[in-house]
């Protein structure tokens, strides 16, 4: 294993971790402020990817496609919040799980009806399609570097939004005491819709950015959603910082485990067995990570209560 390959894998891990953060940040905000578990968050990721693929197919512009993913996912999020989610805040978690499960069925099958079962392809813009040479002679795809950069900028923006702006103050106040901020004259239902749309927009953007690397298809959102749940459990529900740390941990474990475990096992068993055992173990690695965190910190790394 050369150092170059290792660094490349670390970058891949960072990239998938940053995308997971975009998903997990919305989920954890929505849970932290509204106390809602939203299984349909993966559908918003899918909607963003489909909107981007459709707009890119029609106009050929990747920037327009990204804008479309943000706007469509935010709009879908706002409509879903006003139409369905709003009725679930006072319900128990079981009702929330079921209603959002029903939303997944409706949104997934609706998308299949509109776009068909075949995957769509969203092309990386030509200017970013090639590799760039990093210091130290590492050649790495420019697009993936861009994703890492965009993700970091959004993470920084989100921290600023929550720590420094008036909306951020209201969000944090909503997390600790929602009745009090309603009493202080904040329109709480408008705030909830806004937070839900913000989370949806982040998920939609992640869907579009990842959609350009993988294919855009129905059902693409749920595996990411479940990984984002693992991230939140590791980081602690309601904590944006926890979501960032958890997402990077999960992204790196997942990527490096798939490369390093078969390699490490090839020392003790023959090559084909090492590959199959290694990849099977690697597929379990993030859940083992989650189990270990839970044993020592049942509320996650940055969780309270």
């Amino acid at each position, binding site marked *: 294993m050369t150092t170059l390959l290792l660094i490349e894998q670390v970058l891949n891990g960072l990239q998938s971790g940053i995308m997971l953060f975009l998903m997990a940040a919305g989920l954890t905000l929505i*849970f932290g402020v509204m106390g809602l*578990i939203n299984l349909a968050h993966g559908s918003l990721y899918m909607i963003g990817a489909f909107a981007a693929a459709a707009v890119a197919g029609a106009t050929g512009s990747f920037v327009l496609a990204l804008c479309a993913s943000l706007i469509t996912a935010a709009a879908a999020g706002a409509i879903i919040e006003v139409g*369905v989610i709003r*009725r679930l805040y006072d319900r128990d*978690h*079981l*009702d929330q*799980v*079921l*209603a959002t*499960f*029903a*939303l*997944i*069925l*409706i949104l*997934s*099958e*609706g998308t*299949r*009806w509109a776009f068909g079962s075949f995957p769509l392809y969203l092309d990386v813009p030509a200017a970013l399609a090639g590799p760039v040479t990093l210091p130290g002679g590492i050649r790495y795809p420019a697009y993936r570097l861009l994703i890492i950069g965009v993700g970091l900028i959004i993470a920084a923006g989100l921290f600023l939004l929550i720590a420094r702006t008036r909306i951020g103050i209201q969000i944090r106040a909503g997390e600790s005491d929602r009745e009090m901020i309603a009493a202080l004259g904040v329109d709480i239902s408008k705030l909830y819709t806004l937070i839900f749309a913000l989370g949806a927009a982040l998920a939609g953007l992640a869907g579009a950015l990842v959609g350009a690397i993988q294919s855009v298809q129905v059902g693409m959102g*749920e*595996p990411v959603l*479940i990984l984002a*749940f*693992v991230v*939140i*459990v590791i980081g602690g*529900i309601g904590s944006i910082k926890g979501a960032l740390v958890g997402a990077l941990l999960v992204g790196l474990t997942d990527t490096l485990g798939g490369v390093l475990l078969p390699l490490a096992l090839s020392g003790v068993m023959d090559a084909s067995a090492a590959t*199959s055992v290694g*990849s*099977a173990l*690697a*597929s*379990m690695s993030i*859940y083992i990570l*989650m*189990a270990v965190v*839970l*044993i020592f910190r*049942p*509320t*996650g790394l940055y969780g309270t209560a």
Partner: protein
Amino acid sequence: MQRETVLNTLVFLALPAVAAIALVLDEPFTITLATRAAILALAAVGLNLALGLGGLVSLGHAVFFGLGGYAMGILASHAQSYAPLDLGLFVIEGTKSMPVIWLTAVVVSALAALLIGLLALRTAGVYFIMITLAFGQMFYYFTISWPAYGGEDGLSIYVRNSFPGLNTLDPIQFFGLVFAVLAIVLFIMGRIERSAFGLALGTARQNAARVETVGLSPFHLRLVAFVISGAVTGLAGALFADLNRFVSPTMFSWQMSGEFIVFIVLGGIGRLFGPVVGACLFVLLEHLLSGVSEFWLIYLGAILLFVVLFARGGVIGALVGRGGHHG
């Protein structure tokens, strides 16, 4: 008799009635549908102990369903190829005998439920939902990436396993067997609900502090409930695999776990026969709606959304009025 008891008896007799009519009309496919409904009902009856009585919203019960399925698949495939399963320390002969397979499925899924429960029950609420979901996904990806038993393609068994004295390949005889298992499990579950353990478990859901005051541990009550629940769902998994003569990683998929919860809520949460009604309704809807449209899941989603938002007692609740014994 109470209205709910009447309804339960009717529902319970409807399944064999449908199977008997199908036998007379010579429509084996309908018998298979009834068998499928009975097996899915059994899986949800298992989950209902944890979810309805214990209040544990497990989104990972497909783990036990899948383990039961693979217990059948692995044992039967070794019997099929006459190659014993070498585990290093000891060697297991494959088998085509249902009682042995069932026992294995129950033991394996109970052990898995014990391990998952020990971890997941340290937490509660949303954490519990997310963790059970995550463990389900772990098993799903493990079976996909483990090549020995078919990996992503799954594992086919050519001949249905045998039960002493029955020809299991005859649809009506296999239905009878499945229905008998369902009836026995429902009887036992009814006894558990009314036992001291069941009462304590129900109280732990409503007010854990009270249970602790009388010296019982809510954690242990929930763990025992989770293990029994997982074992019953595992048994259903072994039967489901035998019905299809096929196991694949989709038995572990999170949609499967979601559907089990849907059965319980469609039928009516916290009622012994809720999962049975829900599973029958689901199989019926699946059969009818998939004939109407390729995108029948949209309709199912809409129905489910309606039930959750506006008809919280499910079908039984709507028919007999509110006030189930818990929920």
